[in-house]
């Protein structure tokens, strides 16, 4: 016989748990709402009439090619271009290396080496960005300086667009690699066997079947990677040089990204120069959303067969 009181009690516990989980879900999702709302409210205020430190023209802000706090000129147009250049260039540099490395780890390396390399990649992913930053400002800049001197170019102590690109490429490498490893491991062994049974070589199989079957997961890794490249502030600020105007197309010239703009001197400033960083934050959010949308639609297009 079913105990009626026990059944009632169970129902009550279920109800309490349900409510509790719901509360947690609302709490965590409200963080993102609060964050976006706060950034937007703060970031939009400089463009509204009656702004206490003098209204900023939104067109000048979005399309401007000079950013000088000392003269009160805030134009982020060139910074957006700089950010896109450094992020996509680092992806271009890192992507083939990461994918081939993942392929090696999963398909080619002997078991022991594969396990070792996998943990190295995981370790790289957990290195804090400030550590990458000191590494970049200690070593990458020296390399860039040396490289520039071969071409007879003088750099700002090595701080340059190239240094940012190399730094970001290193930083996003573990992200793309570990996603690619997962994607390649998930490829059905049957497909590989089918290819080998058709008389394809190992290399042909790896490139034509394994990588093409894993492409959607590999692409997801690229999207995560470029997200990190866009968002990285600390390390980038240490080697960017924060140029006052632009955009920067010269690899050996200093540059300025949206994140380095937001970060540089944040603690020592107030008024418009402080508030405008929230506006730059909004721009950064839009750049990331747009790039994600672009890469996602590209991913869906190339991945439609798998």
């Amino acid at each position: 016989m079913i105990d009626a009181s026990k059944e009632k009690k169970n129902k009550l516990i279920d109800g309490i748990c349900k409510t509790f989980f719901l509360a947690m879900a609302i709490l965590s999702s409200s963080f993102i709402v609060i964050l976006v709302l706060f950034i937007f409210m703060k970031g939009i205020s400089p463009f509204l009439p009656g702004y206490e430190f003098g209204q900023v023209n939104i067109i000048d802000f979005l399309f401007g090619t000079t950013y000088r706090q000392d003269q009160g000129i805030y134009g982020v147009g060139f910074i957006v271009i700089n950010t896109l250049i450094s992020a996509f260039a680092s992806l271009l540099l890192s992507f083939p290396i990461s994918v081939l490395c993942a392929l090696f780890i999963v398909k080619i390396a002997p078991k022991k080496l594969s396990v070792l390399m996998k943990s190295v990649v995981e370790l790289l992913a957990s290195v804090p960005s400030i550590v990458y930053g000191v590494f970049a400002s200690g070593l990458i800049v020296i390399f860039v300086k040396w490289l520039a001197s071969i071409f007879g170019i003088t750099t700002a102590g090595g701080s340059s667009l190239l240094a940012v690109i190399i730094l970001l490429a290193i930083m996003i490498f573990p992200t793309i690699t570990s996603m690619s490893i997962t994607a390649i491991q998930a490829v059905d062994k049957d497909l590989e066997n089918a290819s080998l049974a058709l008389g394809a070589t190992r290399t042909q199989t790896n490139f034509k079947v394994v990588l093409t079957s894993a492409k959607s997961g590999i692409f997801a890794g690229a999207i995560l990677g470029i997200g990190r490249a866009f968002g990285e502030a600390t390390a980038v600020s240490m080697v960017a040089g924060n140029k006052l105007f632009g955009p920067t197309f010269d690899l050996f010239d200093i540059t300025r990204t949206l994140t380095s703009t937001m970060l540089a001197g944040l603690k020592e400033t107030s008024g418009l120069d402080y508030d405008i960083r929230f506006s730059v934050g909004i721009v950064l959010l839009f750049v990331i959303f747009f790039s994600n949308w672009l890469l996602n639609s590209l991913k869906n297009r190339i991945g439609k067969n798998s």
Partner: protein
Amino acid sequence: MDTCFNVTDLNLYYGEKQALKNINIDLYKNKVTAFIGPSGCGKSTFLRCLNRMNDLIEGCKIEGNILKDGINIYETKTDVVELRTKVGMVFQKPNPFPMSIYENIVYGPKCHGLKNKAELNKIVEKSLKQAALWDEVHDRLHESALGLSGGQQQRLCIARAIAMQPEVILMDEPTSALDPIATSKIEELIETLKNDYTIIIVTHSMQQASRVSDYTAFFLLGDIIEYDKTSVIFQNPKDKRTEDYITGRFG
């Protein structure tokens, strides 16, 4: 009768465990030979010896000879890639590549350096016709192969194997993942294919073996217990164990 494979004293070990024991068998050209037996009896393992797919399994050791056209395929100088172009394979689960139907068929020829578009088109049409799939897919060759039904996918895999113009097609339980209608289509196909190819099929279904094959080998615990014409095996088996198996007393 011409033989396709002559196997003598074949032993196969997975690590310490012996999976095939002293196999001796001649497989005939342009016939359908079925391997039957309970799970784990070594019939699939033996099938994979014939195109050296066992090479891919770690810890797999093989002794003995498998002669194909008089040459031992386990000699060190044998080109495995070339062997596999002559000995094609169809797997248990349909495994088309995540590409278009067309790309699936031309994959093998392309891997071997064929680039001529007209020739590739010819191969696609011929292979799909031989695999009895052309009428169903000729108007959507460039759509994903994954959109096909299970039975169509398996016929595509057969077409993909045919595209290499092999001498032998190995089939590892090709219908075990398919419904009865798709199964009967594949069986009809095997019937027509044997004019051009030697077919060796592993099957769990004794009805299938008796329907499609000319010769049947009964495997048990890594041994070939009996090998004869299919009619003899099913109507007049010499060994008690064969009789017990085909009458369903175990397996």
